[in-house]
């Protein structure tokens, strides 16, 4: 499928179309050549976020009324009832289907955790939040509150918590001291997977049903296994019936609207939409539009069953390509019309939203669904170049919409056409953080190293922020937790105690007050005789907390299996039907849990300061530094300035002195975590990325030797440190690239994230493209895994803080994903401004 010289066109726009540098958020919003798209875009931006209670009501009622049946069957019936009864919404989008709520409205999922949700109506109303605001009626509030008694003690969260030891809970963010932040999986759904589109397209829902029936017929019902699996298949059949019902309802609804409209053009359009949906109620799609419509129904229903986010749209340019080729060959659709359809699909993705608790909005930022990734480019399962016209059209759609979703991730490898680099760069430098860049050459081997077949690894899609996933074959629990390595470091410097340990801590009476400490005793910075002892203390403390983390994650895993089986999702992920096992219980071909470490750079810079100033130059003693940290640098301003200055080596400046220490910091976490068993039958694999978890992680982390003050954000992903005294990387992007590639990206097989920010002048014009591409190629040759760029000037950002109204369309990349700047919490906005401005 490689592009040859005979292929004159790439996308609908020239491959080297330049849209300007740092121009995101500017202009009249009419970026697309298709008026429908510009109109839908405007409607989208003008629609406020709301809360919708209907899913929660139907789900609760159904579960209450079918108590005698196996739990998985009850869940399937609840899913079917929702799809049978929720109201439908059709606007001028040519792709139909919603997540059981109107566009930009969040359905509610009481089965995961519900206490916080009901409490926040009174304690921190969703419609009074600074960012992430949701509107709702009094009636909605009352209805949702009325469901609360049923769910008390019955949620996934309640069970998970009851399974945990105190040792595990005290490391957690809500109940303990925030070494790890499991927001998603402890309070919500798992998500983080993508369906196997190709197989679903091949069989249609009818084919899937036949496959289940065949497997069911082959069971020996006299065996305990047979009885168990029969329950699973019963649930599967209900789920497949449910999705067909849902699609048929859209057929009927579109016909009804068509009969009511007087606009002939609109009537025709609605009838066409109905026809497209009708084809795929049972049968496989036969053309581009039908396939696209089916891809949408497949994925949106996952979001109705569970509120786990990061449901990815897979390798769009691969599974859609046969239909594209067919349409061009037969002349059934024009390239332009298919482009318009793609842009319709992109807008549908934008409309998804999710409500999170006030704390998690800080960690994840934004009010969007979270993690709607879509992958373009890369190699085929056979290892050949996979870039095609649809790869380019996908990027054109980004340029035409300039919205925060889908999170388009682009794969890169040495044998791809140069034009693909140019295309991705041209859009990335507009400055809305998309697309991001992934390196096949390190990701594929790292996936194989975790036990995936080479063909499955080559067919990966990026998921969530940066997590490589063998699309449709894997239940990876990517993004299970943020883990703050710098908090481990804090404890390692103070004999297992928090540096700010005092009797106002809510844990005091059964911790320090009872003669204990949070972590394990590993010595004090005041007493360490050699630098090696400091590193040993960190590594020992790390082992302890990774053990707690693993136990914690497995408790969550068991709770999800027990209280939230996912019969619909199990239809979509390979091997569940063959094995007769639900996806939550290990039905997928590959299973993992991937918690991600953050703040390797802070630990690295902190170690460098200790090594240099205490053990080499002997300028200060360990006791003095420990005192400075405990006092949050109060009275030690000169030391604080010094550790933040270039007089101490810092990670990110192509200086091995610091880079090797950051590498050590990250490796300690990765080594202790990798290959531990998970409850759903896989292994743990580490990642090194933050989403925006570096903000809450820092908020719970006292002053550290890298020069952070108490509460300041930690570094983001594998990016260098920046404190309130300034950025630690001062040597430009090539130095950053070299430092970052000293880390072992391959062991961090759940993904690494580098976030580079550029001023527009650096990337402008041909010169900007050439040099950026060249730098990326070197980064990838050096086995860096991922990069994404911000191209925004300080003036723009500061002005946007002051005048948010003028920047409604301004999108920024927050560590792994995009959000609208004006919807971010003020601390996130500030953090973005402080990030290194790579001025060169």
């Amino acid at each position, binding site marked *: 499928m490689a592009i040859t010289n005979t292929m004159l066109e790439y996308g609908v726009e020239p491959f080297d179309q330049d849209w300007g540098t740092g121009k995101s958020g500017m202009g009249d919003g009419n970026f697309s050549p298709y008026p429908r798209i510009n109109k839908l875009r405007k409607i989208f931006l003008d629609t406020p976020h709301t809360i919708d209670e209907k899913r929660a009501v139907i789900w609760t009622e159904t579960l209450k009324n079918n108590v005698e049946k196996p739990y998985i069957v009850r869940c399937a019936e609840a899913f079917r009832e929702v799809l049978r009864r929720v109201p439908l919404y059709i606007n001028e989008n040519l792709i139909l289907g919603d997540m059981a709520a109107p566009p930009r409205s969040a359905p509610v999922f009481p089965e995961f955790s519900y206490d916080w949700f009901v409490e926040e109506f009174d304690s921190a109303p969703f419609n009074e939040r600074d960012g992430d605001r949701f509107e709702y009626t009094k009636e909605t509030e009352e209805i949702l509150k009325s469901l609360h008694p049923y769910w008390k003690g019955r949620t996934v969260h309640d069970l998970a918590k009851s399974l945990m030891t105190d040792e595990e809970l005290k490391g957690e963010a809500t109940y303990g001291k925030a070494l790890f932040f499991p927001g998603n999986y402890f309070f919500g759904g798992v998500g983080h997977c993508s369906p196997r589109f190709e197989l679903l397209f091949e069989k249609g829902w009818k084919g899937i049903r036949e496959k289940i029936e065949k497997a069911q017929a082959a069971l020996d019902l006299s065996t305990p296994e047979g009885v168990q699996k029969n329950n699973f298949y019963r649930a599967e059949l209900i789920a497949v019936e449910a999705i067909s019902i849902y699609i048929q309802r859209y057929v009927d609804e579109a016909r009804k609207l068509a009969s009511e409209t007087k606009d002939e053009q609109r009537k025709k359009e609605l009838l066409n939409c109905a026809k497209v949906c009708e084809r795929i109620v049972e049968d496989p799609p036969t053309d581009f539009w039908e396939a696209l419509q089916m891809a949408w129904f497949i994925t949106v229903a996952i979001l109705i069953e569970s509120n786990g986010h990061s449901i990815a749209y897979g390798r769009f340019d691969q599974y859609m390509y046969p239909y594209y080729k067919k349409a061009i060959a037969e002349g059934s659709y024009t390239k332009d019309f298919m482009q318009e359809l793609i842009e319709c699909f992109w807008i549908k993705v934008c409309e998804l939203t999710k409500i999170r608790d006030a704390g998690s909005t800080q960690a994840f930022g934004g009010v969007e669904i979270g993690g709607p990734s879509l992958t373009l480019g890369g190699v085929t399962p056979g290892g050949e170049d996979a870039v095609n016209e649809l790869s380019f059209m996908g990027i054109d759609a980004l340029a035409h919409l300039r919205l925060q979703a889908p999170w388009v991730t682009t794969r890169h490898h040495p044998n791809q056409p140069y034009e693909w680099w140019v295309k991705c760069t041209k859009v990335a430098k507009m400055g809305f953080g998309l697309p991001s860049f992934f390196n096949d050459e390190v990701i594929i081997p790292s996936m194989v190293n975790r036990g995936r077949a080479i063909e499955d690894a080559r067919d990966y899609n990026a998921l969530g922020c940066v997590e490589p996933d063998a699309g449709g074959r894997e239940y990876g629990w990517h993004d299970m937790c943020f883990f703050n390595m710098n908090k481990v470091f804090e404890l390692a410097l103070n004999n297992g105690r928090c540096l700010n340990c005092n009797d106002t801590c809510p844990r005091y009476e059964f911790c320090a007050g009872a003669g204990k400490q949070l972590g394990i005793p590993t010595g004090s910075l005041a007493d360490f005789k050699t630098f090696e002892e400091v590193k040993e203390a960190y590594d020992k403390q790390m082992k302890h907390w990774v053990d707690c983390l693993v136990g914690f994650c497995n408790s969550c895993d068991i709770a999800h299996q027990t209280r939230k089986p996912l019969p619909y999702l199990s239809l979509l992920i390979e091997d569940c039907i063959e094995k007769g096992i639900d996806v939550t219980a290990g039905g997928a071909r590959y299973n993992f849990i991937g918690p991600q470490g953050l703040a390797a750079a802070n630990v690295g810079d902190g170690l460098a300061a200790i090594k240099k100033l205490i053990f080499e130059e002997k300028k200060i003693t360990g006791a003095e530094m420990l005192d400075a940290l405990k006092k949050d640098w109060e009275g030690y*301003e*000169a030391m604080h300035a010094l550790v933040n*200055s270039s007089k101490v080596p810092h990670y990110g400046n192509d200086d091995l002195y610091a880079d090797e220490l950051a590498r050590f910091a990250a490796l300690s976490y990765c080594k202790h975590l990798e290959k531990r068993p998970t409850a759903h039958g896989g292994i743990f694999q580490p990642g090194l990325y933050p989403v925006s978890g570096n903000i809450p992680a820092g908020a719970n982390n006292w002053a550290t030797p890298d020069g952070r003050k108490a509460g300041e954000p930690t570094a983001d992903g594998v990016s260098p440190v920046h404190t309130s005294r300034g950025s630690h990387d001062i040597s430009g992007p*090539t130095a950053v690239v070299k430092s970052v590639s000293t880390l072992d990206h391959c062991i961090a097989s759940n993904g690494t994230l580098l976030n580079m920010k550029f001023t527009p002048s650096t990337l402008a014009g041909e010169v*900007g493209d050439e040099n950026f591409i060249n*730098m990326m190629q070197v980064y990838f040759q050096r086995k860096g895994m991922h990069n994404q760029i911000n191209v925004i000037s300080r003036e723009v950002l500061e002005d946007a803080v002051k005048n948010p109204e003028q920047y409604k369309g301004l999108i920024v990349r927050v560590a792994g994903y995009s959000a609208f700047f004006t919807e971010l919490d003020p601390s996130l906005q500030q953090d973005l401004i402080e990030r290194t401005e790579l001025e*060169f």
Partner: protein
Amino acid sequence: MKKAKEIKGIVFNVQRYTVHDGPGTRTELFLKGCPLRCLWCANPEGFHRYVEIGLYVDRCIGVDKCGYCLDLCPDGNSRGILTIENNVITSIDRELCSNCLKCAQACPGNALVVWGETMTVSEAVREVLKDREFYGSKGGVTISGGEPLAQWEFTLEVMKACKKAGIHTCIESTFYGPWNVIEQILEYADYIYTDIKHMDSDKHKEYIGAGNELILENLTRISKMGIPYVIRMPVIPYHNDSPENARATAAFIVDAMGNTVRQVQLLAFHEYGRVKYDTLGLKYPLEGRKWPDRVEQKARITEILDIMKSYGVPAVIGSNESVD
């Protein structure tokens, strides 16, 4: 003449990932020392050929909390070399200061900084080699300043050593210097960046500090050497942005230089260097001047572009278009 390894240079910045001063991705060495004084100069730390101290007043964390500079000043600051106001260092008496640099070397807050680092030729080359893998087929090293001819022996040896290491070399110079020196250096130059600031020698003397005869004579020679070169013209409102000057410049490029130039870059005026004057205790020469707004400046620069083009000169605005 000294042996190459004995030659040391004073470099005030090693700038990696330079994308505008020469083809491809480059490391740029900024050398201290310049015989000219353009009124709009954005690199005043490049004026002097010696290492000096810069002071960023707002970075000082307060002498009560730190005070290392006062402790380390050889005369204990008894003569008041460092002025303290509101608890922070606000100026340096450069007449009294012996430039021993101890205060700046100790300053934890980077309020006192050292402008310039003395390095040997091999140290300089080592810095250049750090980014070798980024240079690709086009990029390499650019030696700039200041005026690199002010440290011509060091410039020559670094260029020679880089060439030997297979690094593409570029020099960015006004070429205000003796031809026999320039000729030696250009033997090792793969690319040249230079500029023409004014065609009227009196104005040139007034704004730049010397007449333009020597520069234009050297440029005429360079144009016939076959080394690819780019000419820049910083477009300074009210100084050199008249249509007459544009016509004279274009005519010179065509008539005297045979229009062999690869690209003529018209660079928009900026004042990003202002704060550096303050750090050196210098007065910014264009302080208080009122400038036309950016829209107006854009119009003037576009007019110059059109004039240049009417002469057949390959002119562009800015430095974002690729050069080969």
